């Protein structure tokens, strides 16, 4: 798994590596990266049971991390809004501003 410690140490304290949000985001990034890789492998090896099993494993990890993050810190996709009173999707900071939601 990749070590994203250095990435988070550059962010403002509110989203720094000590925060729970950053911890969940790190898991989400790692699971997503693993999913990206196994998807590329499966594209060229569609009948590999081990790879399919690993795909299920990282897909679930990713899904858990995604739910944990969006439950507490707001949507990462525009179909994940939980609020019934406020469209928090637009709330910054945005990813290119060092934001995480």
């Amino acid at each position: 798994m990749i070590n994203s410690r250095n990435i988070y140490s550059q962010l403002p304290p509110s989203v720094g590596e000590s925060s729970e949000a950053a911890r969940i985001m790190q898991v989400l990034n790692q699971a997503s990266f693993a999913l990206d890789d196994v998807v590329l492998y499966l594209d060229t090896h569609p009948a590999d049971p081990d790879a399919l099993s690993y795909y299920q494993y990282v897909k679930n990890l990713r899904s858990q991390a995604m739910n944990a993050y969006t439950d507490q810190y707001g949507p990462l996709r525009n179909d994940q809004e939980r609020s019934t009173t406020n469209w928090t999707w637009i709330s910054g900071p945005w990813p290119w501003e060092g934001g995480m939601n």
Partner: protein
Amino acid sequence: MWTYEKRLQYPVNIKNPDPKLAQFIMSQYGGPDGEIGASLRYLSQRYAMPYDVCKATLTDIGTEELAHMEIVAAIIHQLTRNLTPEQIVASGFGPYYIDHTTGIWPQSSGGVPFSACAFQSKGDAITDLTEDLAADGALLHQRKKILPHHKCFHLQCGSICSFSIQLDIVRNGLSLYACSDLFDGVVDCLIVSLRISRA
């Protein structure tokens, strides 16, 4: 970060090939007012926007343009299936066919390759949003010429509305919730849409 959904935003089921029409529609893919330019325009302009509402809207519209790009490519693909050599020559599709056969390649109807010069990203919100309105207007105008009565005309009306509202927000320096001109923006946009549709 992006992910892909294995579906078209609007279905495309073309029965009969028409390479001449394919060549006209090609400009909506990689031409000066096409979907590739639209997507790159909005996704590139996001970074210099001063308000979250603009960053969100340009992100969402830029993403939707990628889906439009896929619809247009599917149209061109289906219009150029099972062509005979005679059809290719008679329709004027020959010059494109020589270089790309029936592969999808971003160029204008006249054969000019896609160029980033088709859009601007100036680092200034008013400049960029004004260009966005003009670009959507140009795209609609072209689409209206090709398919005057088709529903695809309406796919772009939402983004025109949105740019109009955003421009109001940036000009007035107000947040979305304080923006009393919100409905003026919608009305302006409807007037613009009507003018385009009647042109």
